[in-house]
């Protein structure tokens, strides 16, 4: 997620070029596992800084008649964001890289594997990796008293759904990318979602027009779903959010595999 904050300042073109010339460096690098594990620290650091640090300046917060600590308001949002960025990182940057430079897919498609299977395969890897992070994060939340163990278990599948939704979206977007320069737009968009999807303050505070706009975007639904479960307030509304995410995942995968079929098998 903060890859958004930090990495967005790098020029993706250059980074892309670097990676392009350094195939497999991440995997062969001495620090691969450390890099993989350190991904978990990002949402945790944000939780500690904004949730706990700024939370101390705020104290309690009342949303929809329920009063809670600011940290417990922010924590589920960080969880959702973490699921989002894990899935997006794997399906945009890495996916695009493989699509464009490594010819991985062309090699795979020379076998009886169909494009849709390639797309789903990519997505599954993204989810497995992302779920590792969210599971640890949920444990931390329980330990910090920001949610209850039972609800944490309920929230876990929700985070998997969030990952699926953004993974599908990410793949669909990747197939439309013209070049690394488009990643600037993507990361800016991702950053805006991160800041305004009810993550740090309730969307109710925004002007009505902005609020409606936010409610159309996916991270809002992800945050609402995960927060509802972590807070232990299930309701029919959560089903609506879940449905939105499920549709997004399905449409994303369908669109991506169609585009793949067209570009690779043409």
């Amino acid at each position, binding site marked *: 997620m*903060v*890859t958004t*904050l*930090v*990495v*967005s*300042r*790098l*020029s*993706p*073109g*250059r*980074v892309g*070029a*670097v*990676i392009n*010339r*350094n195939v497999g*460096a*991440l995997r062969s*690098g*001495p*620090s*691969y596992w*450390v*890099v993989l594990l*350190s*991904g978990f*620290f*990002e949402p945790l*650091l*944000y939780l*500690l*800084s*904004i949730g706990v*640090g*700024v939370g*101390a*300046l*705020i104290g309690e*917060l009342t949303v929809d008649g329920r009063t809670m600590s*600011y940290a417990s308001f922010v924590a589920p949002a960080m969880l959702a964001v973490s699921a989002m960025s894990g899935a997006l990182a794997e399906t945009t940057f890495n996916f695009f890289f493989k699509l464009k430079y490594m010819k991985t897919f062309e090699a795979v498609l020379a076998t009886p594997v169909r494009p849709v299977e390639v797309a789903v395969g990519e997505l599954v890897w993204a989810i497995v990796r992302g779920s590792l992070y969210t599971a640890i994060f949920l444990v931390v939340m329980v330990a910090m008293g920001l949610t209850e163990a039972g609800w944490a278990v309920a929230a876990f599948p929700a985070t998997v759904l969030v990952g699926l939704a953004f993974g599908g979206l990410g793949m669909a977007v990747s197939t439309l990318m013209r070049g690394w*320069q488009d990643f*600037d737009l993507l*990361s*800016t968009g991702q*950053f*805006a979602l991160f*800041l*305004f999807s009810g993550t*740090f*303050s309730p969307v109710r*505070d*925004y002007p009505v027009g902005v609020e409606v706009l936010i409610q159309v975007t996916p991270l809002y639904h992800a945050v609402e779903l995960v927060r509802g479960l972590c807070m232990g307030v299930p309701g029919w509304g959560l089903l609506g959010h879940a449905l939105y995410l499920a549709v997004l995942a399905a449409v994303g995968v369908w669109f991506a595999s169609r585009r793949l079929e067209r570009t690779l098998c043409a």
Partner: protein
Amino acid sequence: MALTRSVHPTFAVLERHLTLYRRLWQASVFSSFVMPVLFLLSIGIGVGGYVGSVQGVDYLSWIVPGVLASTAFQIAVGESTYAVLGDFKWVRAYHAMRATPVNVADMVRGHLLYLVFRVTVTVLAFLVVVVFFGGLHSPWAPATVLVCALVTVAVAAPVTAFAATIDQDSYFALLFRLIVLPAALFSGVFFPVEQLVVGFRLLAYASPLWHAVELCRAATLGRAPAWPVWAHAGYLLVWAVVGVVLAVRAFRGRLED
């Protein structure tokens, strides 16, 4: 043939970076300027509504100088990683310079001057925006430009030295996650470091970003910083000088033999 030199090699190196920058300035303006503004809106105003006031000022005014210094910090680090390693490893631009009268100190100085330029442009644009938010409260506010230039050199120089030493870009992911991000989040940008438990507070004091945040905050709010100004500035200067020495040494080590 006796060449009459009409440009110092340091500036010739700066010129190369600026020529490259001309190609990507739109993208970089977007990320280095639009993003901090979005940040101000979300955290400064959105979250600020719940915070009320900190140390006697509204939350937006309190984090403006923090976001400012943090932006400089992140541009400095971000542009001293892949770009530097790439110019050694793939582009070999420094090897090309090495074959000319440009020496390693010129390369390091040219790179740092370029970053100071980048940061200054961003900081000025940001200050103009913040004026409209009513986030500046002192005629000293323009001094933040100097502070940001100083912190830029203070962090860019050692990171440049690091980038010139390593051979694998995966180290940068570690740098960002384990050092840069914690520094950006716990150096008094979003909440006073006094809230941190003692051990972490000492780490915050060690971070150059905290000193830059203190100086910027003093400038935009018109109040004395935590330590005397010379102490904060001196600390940053030490980082800058040591960093430049390390960077020159790293460049020399990489380019010779």
